[in-house]
């Protein structure tokens, strides 16, 4: 297990701690302090994936978040699979298992390679749209093959065994990035007494200083970083977050930070530790010190493994002690990148040449390179490279001063590594997240953060200040400014001394010219991850996509998981050149959250499994569980659905429950019904405005059913409201609609009629409600009433309520019915609910008291034609459509909500869909809910549809199916035929009838 590219000394790795890891099934060794990428490079692994479209072999090009190629699948077990991890950001640990994301069946022998090798003409931009979209029916097949071959990573098929946390934070200042600018900004603010959070995506603080040979404050940069971190950690007002990516900058200075606590330790978080933590931070001020990404140059075959970004090469050498090759050619437009050639040379390996695109570079670094005897070829460029699985050589040619064309003969050099630098792009991503548009700066040759309304400061390379001294100055300034904005006093902070290096002016070059036109030159990649080439962008522009936003969508540039961190600006430069305009004229670039991909685990936190959504239980839930209830979700409520006995099917249980109720007595837990206590001297007036019927004369002790409408006249809820006292009512709502109705009442009261004195209180949870229903229900109630209360037919009438004591507990008993049977709704304080419920069963045994759930409730009410708001209504039916004109009082003095709406032209036309009963000709056929109605089953398809079934059940009491449904003009079509063509090809014949199937005169409830 040789690490052939590892240096004997140097770097921030620990050579005494070797770590074994697996990549694509093979074992390798690295050291503590490595990233997966540096360890792979140390071992001479060139190919880490295949490209998305052309399936070309790809290698590592960068050393950080901007890496487009080295996107890995991690995980030693199925449950711990993590897709989409950049090897450049994954710290190495012992036992790490990784694999290429792209490349099927393997990176070295790839099925897409065949397609890719056929050449660019086969797969121009828009290729997928143009080729695979037709015929449309084949798209699913194409998609599966393309996705599998292209490889976008895969999610695990097993539950994530790890735990994730979310934490809400408030801060005075969040500093994003712990390079020189961020560190000193945080230090300044912390010394001034601000509550600071400083976060950095890397395992160590220091940013650019981690891979630099610079000295700071007269000592190695690392020593200065350590002293600052020590002071920050000791300050109780500072939260120091390494391995924490500030992934999103949202409105009103809200930041999301993704902290990885154990991803660097093991595949699975050890000892029940939290694996990742998601910080949601509201900060008064923010300092963005996010640094810059170096831009590679665009040249022929620039994707062959061995082509890298210059600074990444330096990082591998200086931070990880890895020289990723033997013979280097450096191409640069600026002095800064000379450091890479110097680092390479000083590491003892061969620098073939520095190819500088400028005519007369003259800075101190240029001189330092020349002093080392490194060949510097000026006014030249690497126009393409040779090799397929690794660079084997380069073609160098002189270019014109403006970089637009090759001006002389091509020379070949041997090389296995090509480092390139086209300058630096400030990492402006976070500043874009809230919609601020970046602004091009000609001196920086990059986009800078634009105007923002956020409380945002910036410092260092994000401003185009690329030298350490400048970054430190700006960091201090930002820290002081934050203190001043926070109303805190300024403090003394010494900016440490650094060595100043004189640099000559950089050249604006993005796309290197070739001897051939771009369309015929070897592929020049702009966006590696999405395989977008300079020729592709030129083609898009020629096809008429002039807006950069259109170009991006057409070519998919910037749409990868790297969001085009390396490629976007080069792509804009290519488009600008074709369109013969400047980069700012071509447009701007915008980035969206998240900065780098985030796991679903971190987003979900603990809000999963049983904690995903609260569950609401009635006071009798325990009894339901003990008695074998099957449950149904109604909103957050767990309601008994039915109570099967041993060996019973669902239908058998329902038949038994229905018959028992109609023949003797059934009981329903109705506690989930929404209950709103309404008080105030204008309560009655208010009810008259929000219900469609009249409330002015409802006496104390009486209940009334009401329909609640929206302003458009359509039904949205219903329920019974009872008059408890002159200025006191109890409103009930549907179980699912309780919160909506309360909000509706508050809205009208607070915004339209604040002059009404009325108060609303939700009392849903305060009461346990049990409904006994059936011919024996009065007898059972009488047994349990304490004292002398007359509940006989004449003194406790239908739609009366009375306070009384039931089973020793104060109760409100309502004589209302949703089954059509003699029925009493007993309401007691929730704490007594189970007690009363059990007492009812104690006394009810002799009547075969039968518990039933929501399904039997639905059947019993459908037999009576009672609607369920939300099932038989869908926001498009008004009371008259439901045949419920009796619940509308058009003569009320106040124009109640919905009155005007239901008088609109469309609401009063004939032939509206109206609710009727539907009786199948074959009584054994139960129509599926949602079945569409037609009048003429022989009509050609598409048949004119005239309605649908909204409720449909088997009625054991009637020995046939019953259904409620909507039919055009149905109320005038009693006895006529209607047909339901079903998906299985059957056409069910049915007759339109009254929705009241059972006891049309309502005699059963009036006993």
């Amino acid at each position, binding site marked *: 297990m040789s690490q052939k590219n590892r240096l004997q000394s140097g770097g921030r790795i620990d050579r005494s701690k070797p770590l074994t890891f697996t990549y694509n099934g093979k074992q390798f060794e690295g050291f503590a302090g490595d990233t997966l990428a540096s360890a792979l490079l140390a071992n001479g692994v060139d190919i880490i994936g295949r490209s998305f479209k052309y399936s070309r072999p790809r290698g590592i090009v960068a050393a950080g978040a901007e890496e487009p190629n080295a996107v890995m699948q991690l995980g030693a077990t199925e449950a711990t699979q993590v897709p989409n991890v950049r090897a450049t950001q994954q710290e190495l640990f012992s036992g790490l298992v990784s694999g290429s994301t792209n490349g099927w069946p393997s990176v070295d022998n790839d099925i897409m390679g065949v397609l890719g090798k056929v050449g660019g003409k086969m797969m121009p931009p828009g290729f997928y749209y143009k080729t695979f979209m037709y015929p449309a029916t084949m798209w699913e097949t194409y998609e599966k093959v393309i996705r599998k071959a292209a490889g976008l990573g895969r999610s695990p098929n097993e539950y994530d065994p790890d735990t994730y946390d979310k934490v809400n934070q408030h801060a005075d200042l969040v500093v994003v990035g712990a390079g020189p600018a961020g560190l000193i900004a945080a230090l300044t603010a912390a010394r001034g007494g601000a509550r600071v959070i400083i976060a950095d995506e890397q395992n160590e603080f220091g940013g650019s200083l981690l891979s630099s040979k610079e000295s700071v404050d007269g000592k190695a940069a690392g020593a200065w970083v350590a002293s600052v971190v020590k002071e920050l950690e000791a300050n109780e007002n500072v939260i120091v977050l390494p391995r924490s990516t500030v992934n999103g900058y*949202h409105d009103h200075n*809200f930041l999301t930070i993704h902290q990885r606590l154990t991803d660097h330790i093991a595949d699975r978080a050890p000892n029940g530790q939290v694996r990742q933590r998601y910080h949601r931070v509201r900060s008064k001020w923010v300092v963005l010190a996010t640094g810059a990404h170096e831009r590679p140059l665009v040249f022929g075959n620039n994707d062959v493994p061995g082509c890298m970004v210059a600074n990444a090469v330096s990082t591998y050498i200086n931070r990880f002690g890895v020289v990723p090759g033997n013979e280097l050619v450096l191409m640069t437009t600026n002095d800064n990148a000379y450091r890479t050639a110097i680092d390479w040379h000083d590491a003892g390996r061969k620098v073939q040449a520095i190819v500088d695109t400028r005519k007369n570079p003259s800075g101190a670094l240029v001189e330092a390179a020349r002093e080392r005897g490194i060949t510097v070829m000026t006014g030249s460029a690497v126009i393409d490279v040779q090799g397929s699985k690794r660079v084997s050589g380069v073609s160098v040619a002189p270019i014109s001063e403006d970089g637009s064309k090759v001006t002389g003969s091509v020379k070949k050099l041997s090389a296995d590594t090509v480092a390139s630098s086209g300058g630096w792009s400030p990492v402006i991503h976070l500043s874009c997240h809230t*919609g601020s548009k970046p602004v091009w700066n000609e001196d920086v040759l990059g986009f800078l953060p634009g105007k923002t309304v956020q409380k945002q400061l910036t410092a260092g390379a994000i401003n185009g200040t690329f030298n350490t001294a400048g970054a430190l100055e700006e960091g201090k300034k930002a820290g002081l400014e934050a203190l001043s904005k926070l109303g805190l006093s300024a403090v003394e902070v010494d900016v440490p001394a650094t060595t100043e290096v004189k640099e000559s002016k950089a050249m604006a070059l993005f796309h290197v010219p070739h001897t051939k036109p771009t369309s015929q030159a070897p592929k020049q990649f702009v966006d590696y991850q999405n395989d977008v080439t300079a020729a592709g962008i030129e083609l898009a522009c020629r096809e008429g996509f002039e807006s950069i936003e259109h170009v991006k969508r057409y070519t998919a540039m910037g749409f990868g998981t790297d969001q085009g961190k390396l490629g976007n600006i080069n792509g804009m430069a290519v488009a600008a050149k074709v369109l013969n305009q400047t980069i700012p004229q071509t447009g701007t670039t915008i980035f969206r959250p998240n900065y780098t991909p985030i796991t679903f685990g971190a987003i979900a936190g603990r809000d999963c499994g049983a904690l995903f959504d609260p569950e609401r239980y009635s006071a009798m839930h325990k009894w339901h569980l003990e008695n074998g209830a099957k449950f149904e979700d109604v909103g957050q409520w767990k309601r008994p659905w039915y109570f099967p006995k041993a060996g019973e099917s669902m239908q058998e249980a329902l038949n038994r429950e229905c018959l028992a109720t109609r023949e003797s007595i059934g009981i329903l837990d109705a506690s989930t019904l929404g209950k709103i206590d309404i008080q105030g001297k204008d309560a009655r007036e208010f009810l008259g405005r929000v219900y469609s019927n009249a409330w002015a004369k409802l006496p104390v002790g009486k209940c009334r059913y009401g329909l609640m409408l929206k302003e458009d006249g359509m039904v949205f809820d219903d329920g019974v409201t009872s008059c408890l006292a002159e200025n006191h009512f109890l409103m009930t709502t549907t179980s699912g609609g309780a919160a909506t109705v309360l909000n509706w009442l508050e809205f009208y009261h607070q915004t*339209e009629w604040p002059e009404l004195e009325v108060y609303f209180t939700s009392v849903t949870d305060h009461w346990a409600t049990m409904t006994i229903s059936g011919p024996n229900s009065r007898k059972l109630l009488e047994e349990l009433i304490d004292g002398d209360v007359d509940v006989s037919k004449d003194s406790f009438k239908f739609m009366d309520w009375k306070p009384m004591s039931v089973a020793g507990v104060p109760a409100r008993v309502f004589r209302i019915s949703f089954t059509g049977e003699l029925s009493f709704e007993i309401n007691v304080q929730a704490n007594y609910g189970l007690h009363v419920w059990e007492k009812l069963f104690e006394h009810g045994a002799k009547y075969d008291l039968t518990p039933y759930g929501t399904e039997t409730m639905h059947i019993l009410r459908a037999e009576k034609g009672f609607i369920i708001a939300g099932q038989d209504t869908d926001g498009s039916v008004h009371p008259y459509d439901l045949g419920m004109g009796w619940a509308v009082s058009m003569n009320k003095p106040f124009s109640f909500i919905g*009155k005007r709406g239901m008088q609109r032209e469309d609401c009063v036309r004939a032939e509206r869909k109206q609710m009727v009963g539907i009786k199948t000709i074959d009584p054994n056929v139960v129509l599926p809910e949602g079945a569409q109605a037609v009048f003429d089953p022989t009509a050609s398809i598409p048949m004119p549809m005239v309605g649908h079934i909204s409720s449909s059940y088997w009625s054991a009491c009637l020995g046939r199916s019953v259904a409620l449904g909507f039919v055009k003009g149905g109320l005038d079509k009693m006895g006529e035929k209607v047909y339901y063509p079903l998906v299985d090809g059957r056409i069910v014949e049915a007759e339109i009838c009254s929705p009241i199937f059972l006891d049309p005169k309502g005699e059963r409830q009036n006993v």
Partner: protein
Amino acid sequence: MFYIYCPYCGEHREEEEFHNHGQAHIERPADPDSCTDEEWGNYMFFRKSPKGLHHEIWDHVAGCRKFFNVTRDTVTYEIKEVYKMGEQPKVVAE
């Protein structure tokens, strides 16, 4: 994720506690029955969607349950002012 000042609670709270109720200052016609279909339709359905300053109703639904008005810039999402029901905005579009 907005940070909203509730004029009744007198505190900034997270957006999760609030619910947006759309355009503010839409009054229910005093005499609906005399409205034409068009007038009623305008009241019910037509809302502004301005680029820039917008007056909206918000509800501190998971807090004090009070409705109030917010003047918000729909481009920058800045909240320019909050004011109680029945009050008029001080920040208005030119």
